[in-house]
């Protein structure tokens, strides 16, 4: 008998569909309450960092160059106090097979799908991940479907996302394009169920294990080139995979003193599921609209439990602005001869400010660059913004109002990150985790889990629970 494919029927089968499409039963790691065995889930991939490195090396992924940005460092030092301004380095992840660090995530997931005998892979993404999955699927001889949120209700697409659709198709994938809304998950599940393809989720343990090599390589490269670990690593924060994977890789390399900073473009005030505001954004990823919810409520994606848990790993979470990222993209091209995509320069824009807090002998590594092309470039993105009524001007980026203007720094001395209150984010995560206890008292295991999930301590977690009136 044919299964009912209406919204409620498919959503009702989501647990079953996800289990079939991942070849992994997340129930094996559940405690029945707030806690789950995160490290157990990560180990269940069965891949060591060496295994992942071998998989990636076969498919043109990883071991990208770590480039010292000498002119940008020199420029940052002009605005720092004497003796300050760390060396800024960047991992040129645009050199991966499909042009971004997302290849690391896709390589592992697609290789695993192949090993388990799936005929194809499917991923829900409007970002570089689609091209990464499509590229890996092509290399492994598998079919590929990418589900994208792409258009508003007038059929107007973000140029950056349209380019990503083109690239996925160029790499042989089928692209399903949708209008704005969380019902993307319904379509995703429905196609997953009908096709029987592997769910190459961004948030699966296979995906995150794939990013660990990035952190590991950064530590090894710095030791070889500079004789020490980096003082600071800056990662763009959207879904949380880069922060999680990079930090785990650094830890695996023994670089435990490195400060891990997450950076997002501040898009406060724009609703991510709003049809009208969809095209008021001038960057479609690397922003707080993904970064904050994925930090405070990681388990909302297309897997029952997310392997990307950024609050476990970040020492700081800073924001930058669309104007700073656009200016930085031009700076990277003009001063370093590297023309790369804007969204991938989010962490670099933050790093320009953060480097000025560190002494000159410190090493600051930015984890990525991404490919650029038509649509996915500062000019079409700024032009699109202007066409959508966004004011573009030079000024102080602190005057930036997302959805209203893009303030390009009037001079490079005006780049300035803002620190988010991590305790506020931690509280939010705890609050969102509590319902999993179903009204029961939280166990000692739950408390221990929340301490790890928020990178805090028992006293902090208990004080938040007291504030919320939750028993433990």
């Amino acid at each position, binding site marked *: 008998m044919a299964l009912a494919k209406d919204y409620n029927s498919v959503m009702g089968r989501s647990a079953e569909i996800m289990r079939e499409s991942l070849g992994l039963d997340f129930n094996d790691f559940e405690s029945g309450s707030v806690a789950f065995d995160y490290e157990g889930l990560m180990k269940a991939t069965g891949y060591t960092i060496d295994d992942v490195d071998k998989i990636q090396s076969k498919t043109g992924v990883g071991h990208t160059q770590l480039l010292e940005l000498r002119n940008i460092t020199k420029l940052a030092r002009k605005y720092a106090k004497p003796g300050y301004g760390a060396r800024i380095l960047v991992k040129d992840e645009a050199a991966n097979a499909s042009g971004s660090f997302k290849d690391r995530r896709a390589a592992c997931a697609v290789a695993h799908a192949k090993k388990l005998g799936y005929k194809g892979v499917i991923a829900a993404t409007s970002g570089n991940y689609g091209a990464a999955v499509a590229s890996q699927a092509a290399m492994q001889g598998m079919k590929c*479907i990418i589900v994208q949120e792409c*258009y508003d*209700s007038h059929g107007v697409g973000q140029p950056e996302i349209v380019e990503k659709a083109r690239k996925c198709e160029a790499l042989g994938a089928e692209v399903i394009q949708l209008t704005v*809304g969380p019902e993307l998950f319904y379509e995703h599940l429905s196609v997953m169920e009908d096709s029987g393809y592997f769910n190459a989720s961004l948030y699966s343990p296979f995906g995150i294990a794939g990013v660990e090599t990035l952190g590991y390589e950064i530590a090894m490269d710095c030791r070889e080139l500079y004789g020490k670990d980096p003082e600071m690593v800056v990662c763009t924060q959207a879904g949380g995979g880069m922060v999680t994977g990079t930090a785990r890789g650094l830890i695996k390399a023994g670089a435990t003193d490195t400060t891990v900073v997450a950076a997002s473009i501040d898009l406060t005030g724009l*609703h991510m599921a709003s049809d009208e505001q969809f095209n008021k954004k001038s960057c479609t990823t690397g922003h707080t609209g993904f970064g904050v919810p994925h930090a405070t409520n990681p388990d909302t994606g297309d897997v029952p439990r997310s392997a990307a848990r950024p609050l476990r790993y970040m020492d700081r979470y800073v924001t930058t602005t669309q104007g700073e990222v656009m200016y930085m993209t031009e700076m990277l091209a003009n001063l370093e001869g590297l023309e790369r995509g804007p969204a991938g320069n989010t962490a670099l824009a933050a790093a320009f400010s953060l480097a000025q807090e560190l002494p000159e002998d410190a090493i600051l590594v930015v984890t990525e660059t991404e490919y650029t092309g038509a649509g996915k470039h500062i000019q079409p993105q700024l032009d699109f913004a202007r066409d959508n009524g966004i004011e573009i001007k030079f000024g102080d980026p602190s005057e930036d109002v997302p959805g209203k203007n893009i303030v390009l720094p009037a*001079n*490079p001395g005006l780049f300035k990150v803002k620190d988010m209150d991590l305790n506020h984010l931690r509280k939010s995560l705890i609050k969102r985790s509590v319902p999993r206890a179903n009204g029961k008292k939280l166990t000692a295991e739950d408390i221990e889990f929340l301490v790890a999930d928020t990178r805090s301590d028992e006293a902090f977690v208990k004080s938040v629970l007291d504030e919320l009136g939750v028993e433990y």
Partner: protein
Amino acid sequence: MVKKDTWVRIHSVILKAEERTAKLPEDTKHVDFEMWVKGSLKEDAEIGDEVTVITATGREEKGTLIEANPYYTHSYGKFVPEIIEIDKQLREIMQFGGEN
């Protein structure tokens, strides 16, 4: 007429506005949840007809035929003068090629 086997783009409404039950902002509640897919046309048809296509992965998908031989038009955008200002400023500060 669009001939059978032509590569086309189709459109469909997955959920009408009134069928959308997810937690949505007001503006999104009032619009349909729509989809666009490409594939080879199964039978001869006219633009605007309800058709079936075979997608790149071999799936069958139904929808309204909206475009034959679809192509991309995204570009490097129209001129944005601020970009030239950034370039000039950076070159001045860094004095590339020595002082002018």
